[in-house]
C-alpha cells in the first residue's frame, strides 16, 4: 500500500472541499472495497478523508412518504430497518444476498453504489485493463469472461457492476443526493448514476471529484410482490452470475432489474409493458442488444429462467 495522509472531516461540505483540493484524495467510509484495492495498488490515493463522523447514518421518513437513507447507513442496518423490511423488502433481500455478516456491518449505502468491478483482469495489475489503466487494452475480451457482462459493454470493457443493493435501488427508482465542494446539492436518478463504459470505462459515475453522496432517497413504497433472486457459484458469500430484482403485480405486470449482466443495474422500462404478453416478449426486448461472449452466453438463458422462477414465486405470493 502506498503512503497517504489522513484526516477526519466534521461536515459534508468540509469533506467535499478536502477531497476537491487534491487530485489524488479519496473519501473513505466503510473501506471494505477501497482498502482492498489500495493493498493491491489498484487504487493509490495520497490523501484519505474519513467521512464516518458526518452523522449521515440515519434512516428517516420523507415528507412525500418516501425514505431518506443516510450515505453512511451500514448495509446490515439498512436491511434490518423496520420500514425497509415492511415497505421496500426487495431492498432488504438484495442487501442480505450480498457479502458476509462482517462486511455488511461496515459497508455503507453510498460505498455500495461506488464499489468497483470484481473483473479478475481489473484486479490483476500485471494485465492490461482499460478501467484500471485507460488505453492499455481489455484482457477480458478474448480472455476468461464467464462472470462478465453480456449487455451494455463496449469493445473497451465488459466488466459488470458487482452490487446487489444497486439492482434493488434501480427497481425502486431511488435518487442519489450529493453535495459538491462549493456546497451545491443535487439529486441524480439511479438510472443515470452509473455510466456504461463506452470508450471511457474508467469513468463509472458522473460525480465530480470531491462531490460527496449524502443520502439515497426512496420514493413512496410501490405496492406489489417484492422479490430479489440471486444465482451464484456458491450458496452464500459470492457475487451474482445473474440476479433479478422485481416488484410484480397480480396481473402479471411489474418492474424488473437485473444484476450480474451489465456494467450497471440493467433495467429497460420500455420493455416492461411487454410483460403482459409473457416472459419471452419482455426478455427479448430487454436483452435485444446483448452481445455475450462464448464464455458467458449461458447467462442469457440463466437470466430468463431465473426470471421465470421469480414470476412464478410472485404469482404464488400475491
Amino acid at each position, binding site marked *: *500500500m*502506498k*503512503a*497517504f*495522509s*489522513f484526516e*477526519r472531516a466534521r461536515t459534508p461540505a468540509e469533506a467535499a472541499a478536502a477531497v476537491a483540493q487534491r*487530485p*489524488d484524495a479519496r473519501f*473513505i467510509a*466503510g*473501506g*471494505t472495497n477501497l*482498502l*482492498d484495492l489500495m*493493498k493491491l*495498488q*489498484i*487504487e*493509490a*490515493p*495520497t490523501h*484519505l478523508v*474519513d467521512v*464516518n463522523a458526518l452523522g449521515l447514518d440515519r434512516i428517516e421518513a420523507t415528507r412525500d412518504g418516501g425514505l431518506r437513507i443516510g450515505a453512511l447507513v451500514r448495509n*446490515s442496518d439498512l*436491511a*434490518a430497518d423496520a420500514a425497509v*423490511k*415492511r415497505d421496500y*423488502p426487495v431492498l*432488504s*433481500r438484495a442487501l*442480505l*444476498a450480498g*457479502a*458476509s*455478516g*462482517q*462486511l455488511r*456491518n*461496515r459497508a455503507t449505502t453510498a460505498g455500495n453504489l461506488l464499489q468497483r468491478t470484481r473483473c479478475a483482469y481489473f484486479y490483476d*495489475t*500485471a494485465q492490461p485493463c482499460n478501467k*484500471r*489503466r485507460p488505453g492499455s487494452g481489455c484482457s477480458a475480451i478474448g480472455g476468461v469472461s464467464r462472470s462478465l457482462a453480456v449487455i451494455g459493454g463496449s469493445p473497451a470493457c465488459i466488466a459488470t457492476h458487482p452490487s446487489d443493493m444497486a439492482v434493488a435501488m434501480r427497481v425502486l427508482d431511488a435518487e442519489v443526493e450529493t453535495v459538491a465542494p462549493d456546497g451545491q446539492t443535487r439529486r441524480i436518478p439511479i438510472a443515470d448514476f452509473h455510466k456504461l463504459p463506452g470508450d471511457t470505462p474508467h469513468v463509472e459515475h458522473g460525480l465530480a471529484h470531491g462531490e460527496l453522496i449524502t443520502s439515497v432517497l426512496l420514493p413512496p413504497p410501490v405496492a406489489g410482490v417484492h422479490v430479489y433472486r440471486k444465482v451464484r457459484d456458491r*450458496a*452464500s*458469500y459470492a457475487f451474482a452470475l445473474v440476479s433479478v430484482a422485481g416488484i410484480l403485480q397480480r396481473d402479471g405486470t411489474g418492474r424488473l432489474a437485473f444484476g450480474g449482466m451489465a456494467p450497471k443495474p440493467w433495467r429497460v422500462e420500455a420493455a416492461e409493458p411487454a410483460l403482459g404478453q409473457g416472459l419471452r416478449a419482455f426478455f427479448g426486448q430487454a436483452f435485444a442488444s446483448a452481445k455475450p461472449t462464448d464464455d458467458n452466453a449461458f447467462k442469457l438463458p440463466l437470466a430468463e429462467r431465473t426470471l421465470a422462477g421469480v414470476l412464478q414465486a410472485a404469482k404464488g405470493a400475491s
Partner: protein
Amino acid sequence: MDDLPGCLSRRDVLIASAGTAAMTAVDGAEAAGPALPPTMARVALEVNGKSHTVDVDTRTSLLDLLRERLQLTGTKKGCDHGQCGACTVLLDGRRINSCLTLAVMHPGAKVTTIEGLGTPARMHPLQAAFVAHDGYQCGYCTPGQICSAVGMLDELKQGMPSHVTADLAAKPLLSAEELRERMSGNICRCGAYSNIAEAITRVAGGAA
C-alpha cells in the same frame, strides 16, 4: 565467493534482482504521482477493556495494530482481503473484518478480540463449546469463528434478518440453515464446519 571476470557475484545478482523488483513495483502502481513518505498519526482506543494510545503509520490496519503493536496475536491474518474471516473482531460490539479497516479510523472505539472474550482459566461459553465439540483442526480460523459467532448471536437476538430468513417480519430463529448462512464469512480450510456448527448451536440453545 570469488568475483571472477565476466561472472556475476552473488552480491551482484542480489543487487540486480532488487532493482528488477523495484521496477516491477513502480510499473504495478496504477495511480500517478510521487510516492509520499510514511505519515504517522496517533490513535487512542480501548482494546479488551484496556486503553491504548499508539502512534501508527496511517496504512496500519486494525488487524496489524492488534497483532504487531499490541501483541494481541490471537486475531489471525488469513487472506488480508476480507474473504476468509480469520481477522474477525468485535468493534463496538459488532463483528467486522479487522483487515479491511484502518486503525486511524477508530479513535475512541471499543475493540474486543478473542483474548478479551475469555481466558484459558475462564473461557467464554463459545470457547468452551468449541473445545467440547472439537470445533477446529489446525485452529487458525478459530478466533475469527468465535468472535464472529458472538457477533452473529447478538445480531440474531436483535432480530436482524439473513438471506435465508423466510419472513422478514418474524423474529429469526437459529436453524441449521440460518447458522450456515450467517457464518458464511468465516472459512475453515480444515473443513471442521459440522463441529463448529454444533458448538455454536449448543451455546445458542437451538436445534441444528
